[in-house]
């Protein structure tokens, strides 16, 4: 490099000096406009929720609006002890069990649909558009329809029958679409290789297909759970005599006028975050476990 022409050296020196000085280049005015826009977006997104979380920690004098009065967990205790606040505990339990049921059925259904849709079959287009149809259909109308049909057939609507069906009409199409994206990166040669090496159909599924698709299946589970857990419009006419949690909260907004409503918001948000955390943690754990295999020599 000693033969470098002298004209080049000052240029590199100048470039280096700029880095050493740490003088950042002036940001264009558009940066500040976009940054402000983004900041207000984030504020609009999380601000209302933060208000609720903060207000739920007031003491007994607390009201529904700012300013904040005192600091305690009074309204959380109130939430689980007072009868007048409604059947929060029951609603919470029903919603969790329903969401878990929906999750399992969604994962199994989406997985199988993902496998099936890898090749063309008779009527595949119809099946696909029917599925998308139930995604696009207004939830309230769909819920009313399911409620009506149950009544027509003389069946009693309940959260674990009609509401389960209504939720699946929402989560399954979502799960299948996610599965399509996951499947597009699945190489059929893996299955063939496994077959070539002597694996049975079940061994291919359990030793090759499921482990490779595991992160995708977890994502489908996460979708299924969260979509079901806070589903409202489809549940309204299908849950029967007992409410799920979103219906319970809705009922409370009509007759409860204390911060225990906000406490409920905080608790359900925590539950959601816990589930999401478990799922994402699971995905990270799978990837970590795969990564550590590399470093163990």
């Amino acid at each position: 490099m000693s033969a470098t022409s002298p004209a080049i050296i000052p240029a590199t020196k100048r470039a280096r000096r700029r880095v050493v000085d740490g003088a950042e280049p002036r940001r264009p005015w558009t940066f500040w406009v976009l940054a402000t826009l983004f900041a207000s977006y984030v504020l609009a997104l999380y601000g209302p929720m933060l208000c609720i979380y903060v207000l739920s920690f007031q003491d007994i004098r607390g009201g529904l609006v700012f300013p904040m009065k005192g600091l305690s967990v009074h309204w959380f205790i109130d939430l689980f002890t007072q009868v007048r606040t409604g059947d929060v505990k029951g609603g919470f339990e029903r919603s969790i069990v329903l969401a878990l049921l929906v999750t399992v059925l969604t994962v199994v259904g989406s997985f199988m649909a993902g496998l099936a849709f890898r090749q063309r079959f008779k009527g595949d287009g119809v099946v696909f558009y029917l599925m998308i149809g139930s995604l696009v259909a207004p939830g309230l109308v769909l819920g009313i329809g399911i409620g009506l049909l149950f009544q027509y057939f003389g069946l009693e609507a309940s959260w674990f029958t009609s509401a389960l069906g209504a939720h699946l009409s929402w989560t399954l199409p979502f799960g299948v679409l996610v599965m399509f994206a996951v499947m597009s990166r699945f190489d059929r040669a893996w299955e063939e290789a496994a077959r070539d090496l002597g694996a049975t159909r079940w061994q291919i599924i359990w030793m090759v297909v499921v482990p490779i698709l595991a992160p995708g299946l977890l994502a489908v589970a996460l979708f299924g759970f969260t979509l079901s857990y806070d589903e409202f419009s489809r549940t309204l006419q299908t849950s029967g005599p007992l409410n799920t949690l979103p219906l319970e909260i809705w009922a409370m907004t009509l007759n409860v006028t204390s911060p225990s409503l906000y406490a409920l918001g905080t608790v359900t948000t925590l539950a959601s975050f816990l589930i999401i955390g478990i799922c994402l943690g699971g995905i990270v754990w799978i990837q970590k476990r795969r990564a550590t295999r590399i470093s163990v020599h």
Partner: protein
Amino acid sequence: MSMASGKGDIELAGLYKRFGDFTAVDGVNLKVQDGAYCCFLGPSGCGKTTILRMIAGHEDPTGGEILIGGENVVGLPPVARRTAMMFQSYALFPHLSVRDNVAFALRVRGIDKAQRYRTTDAMLEKVRLTELAHRLPGQLSGGQQQRVALARAAITEPRVLLLDEPLSALDEQLRIQMRTELRRMQRELGITFVHVTHTQLEAIALADVVVVMEKGKIKQAGPAREVYAAPRDRYVAEFLGGQNVLSGKVESVNGASLTLSVPDTKGIVVPLDGARTVTDGDRIDVAVRRDDIHLRRPGSSGAQAGWNAVDTRIRTVEYQGSFVKVMLDTMAEGGFIVYVPEREFFQDPFESGDIVVATWPTEHSRLLA
């Protein structure tokens, strides 16, 4: 296992495969000896991969028989055939370590962990992968992945190993290196290899038997040298390269030879081998090897008896290292090309536009079918 014979000779008898209206394999008959290295060579869509997949048991033939070790294996799963396949992109399981990939076949057979890993580790030693045993496939280079794929396929001690374009995923240098390694592994394992490729050089460098295919049919099958040096027809000659193919009309037939006229040259003498009868006026194809042709300056030493001579002009000159590729402005549609040894060329280098005479011994012209 029902196939105890262990012999890996393959026979394809009247093999057909149709996909809807498309005939992928159109009546193929072939015998491959036990322990041979056989290459199927042809452009994409010629049916070579379909044949491989039918031998492997991943595709069922529409008609015909596949015999391995003398027994018809059509309808049997791969394990019962005792074949193993190496897939084009290797299809290594991305979630399993190198060791677990190689051990997979033993795991599905229910062999206990200790014994499974003992066998696997011995195999990893053999293909020099011991240090990489705990890596995932995504952490390996192309060449290492290929070795894992080979080890995984070989661990079941198959009698036939089927390789689908095994070198196509590698870069040029590695391809040549892995080519040598494939041949070494084949000798070491002593089993039949069937290898599918679209690269002529790969096929002739590796194979005991080269099978040239076109549109579902075998065009020529034989030892590499025979297929390269004595192609049967225009397709094989052009696909394997190294040949100039001249098309023309028969001027006259005189006993042991004929005289050919091509659009701008008359009187090219071609020996008759008796395999084909020709009469005056027939349109025929003749092959002349590019390295059998000599170039000289016009008038330098007159016409020689027993040699064909064509007056022509040089179009382009391309340096290739050990030889120089000279394209002439004449005759063959695909260009008439001469390979001149490098040293010989530079004793008196030609340039494009030079008038030259291209000559070759008449017995080096080959009549094609």
